[in-house]
């Protein structure tokens, strides 16, 4: 579904990620783990058209989407949920969800699926987003992306700024989506959360992919156990 090869990107000519390659197959949940500053956000922003890349290719559903602007990529069915969420703060929850389906007509069935997944949003449809808690905003960011019935959901650090229980709840919701067949790519520095959720993963360090494998393989790797899982 998504295939990234030899991909480099950064800011003002200084690459932050170097020659990165990975793939996500339909129906998979794939994680990219790494510490703060490893280049996860840069990689995702460039891949999703918010930042230009300096080399490499991004294939989505077999089509070359390298260098397309974010708004085109979003319409192709690859939805990015940024760690900063980028919701519309002076609009209501409902308006944010409706815009998620833009330019299409919001599908009532999808809306009820989203509200069933996040009952907190259903209680707050008329509330302005700027007044909501971080956890609710994260639910809304995911919900807004789901409104377009994406083929691939790309999440950057969905646990950012959330209390442990809320981060857990977010991943539980993602788990439900996965079971329903949604393909998910997630970047996460809280590695245990991502591991409980993903089929496969890649380890990004200083802008390079150092390791890859199934979640079991990565969880058994001594280097990862000490660096990311706190096991010595």
């Amino acid at each position, binding site marked *: 579904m998504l295939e990234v090869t030899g991909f480099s990107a950064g800011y003002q000519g200084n690459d932050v990620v170097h020659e990165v390659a990975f793939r996500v197959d339909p129906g998979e949940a794939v994680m990219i783990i790494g510490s703060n500053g490893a280049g996860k956000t840069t990689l995702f922003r460039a891949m999703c*058209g918010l930042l230009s890349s300096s080399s490499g290719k991004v294939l989505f559903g077999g089509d070359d989407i390298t260098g397309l602007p*974010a708004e085109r990529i979003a319409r192709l069915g690859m939805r990015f949920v940024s760690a900063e*969420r980028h*919701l*519309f703060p*002076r*609009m209501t929850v409902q308006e944010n969800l409706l*815009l998620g389906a833009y330019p299409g007509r919001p599908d009532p069935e999808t809306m009820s699926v989203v509200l069933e997944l996040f009952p907190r949003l259903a209680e707050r449809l008329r509330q302005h987003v700027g007044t909501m808690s971080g956890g609710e905003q994260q639910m809304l960011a995911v919900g807004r992306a789901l409104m*377009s019935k994406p083929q691939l959901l790309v999440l950057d650090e969905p646990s950012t700024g959330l209390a442990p229980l809320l981060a857990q709840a977010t991943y539980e919701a993602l788990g439900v989506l996965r079971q329903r067949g949604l393909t998910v790519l997630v970047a996460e520095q809280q590695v245990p959360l991502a591991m409980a959720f993903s089929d496969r993963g890649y380890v990004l360090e200083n802008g390079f992919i150092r390791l890859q494998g199934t979640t079991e393989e990565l969880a058994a790797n001594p280097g990862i156990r000490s660096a990311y899982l706190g096991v010595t």
Partner: protein
Amino acid sequence: MIANILDGIVLGLQFGLLATGLTLVYGLGGVLNLAYGQMAVTSAMMVAFAMDAGIPALPAVGIGLLAGGLLGLFLDQTILRPVYRLHDEPRVLLSLLLTLGVSFIVDGFLIWRYPLKALTLHIGGGAVEILGVPMRRGSLVASAITLITFVALFLFFQRTTLGRAVRSVIEDEEGARLVGIYPDRMLRLILVLSGVLAALVAITRSMVTPVNTTSGLSITVFALIVTVVGGLGNVAGALLAGIILGIVSVVAADLIGSYISLIILLGAAAVTILIRPAGLLGVKE
């Protein structure tokens, strides 16, 4: 006093609509259009020429509104192209300089070729008494059109998908892109809308007082002042600020003299920047 306040509201509604066109373009695209008043005047002149050619008033007004929209589209397709490649402060500055240049050219041309041309739309019938004050019918028709336009604008922005998409770009451009909204298309739409609004203000204004070829600069200045007081990208703020400043302007002109009212308006804008930098209804970012 009641007469002053009513006159102030008539003027203020037009101030509000005027500022709406300017503030939306700025809030959405970081483009400050200093040729805004010239767009208004050029559209008004199109109405005057159309009527000179024997076209009845109503279709002539239609031509004027169309001209306003086309002027907005023209700016978007030509002179603003290099502006779109810049971001943040350089973008505002370049848009300001380029549109200022456009305003000089348009003003120069109009004053050279049509120094005495003016648009006056006569609305027949006698005065109508409101709260014991006789109001000219032209003022009432102008205010009614302005109010209806505001209602239409609010419905558009609050109730339609396209209107929400425009607001989303003002609130968070990156968020808008992530849901598949093209910010450049929204800006083009709003530039066309702003041209139509500029034309509409000039046309309704001509029902109250003549609009002539030299009115452009003062229209831009009024729009800027109201925009600053109302807050950027905020239609409700523009309406509120317009009405307040309209009343202030008329009362000040009556009590002290019309020379002072512009100074008072500028003072109001300066005080607003000091106390509430985001405008009356502005939200801190």
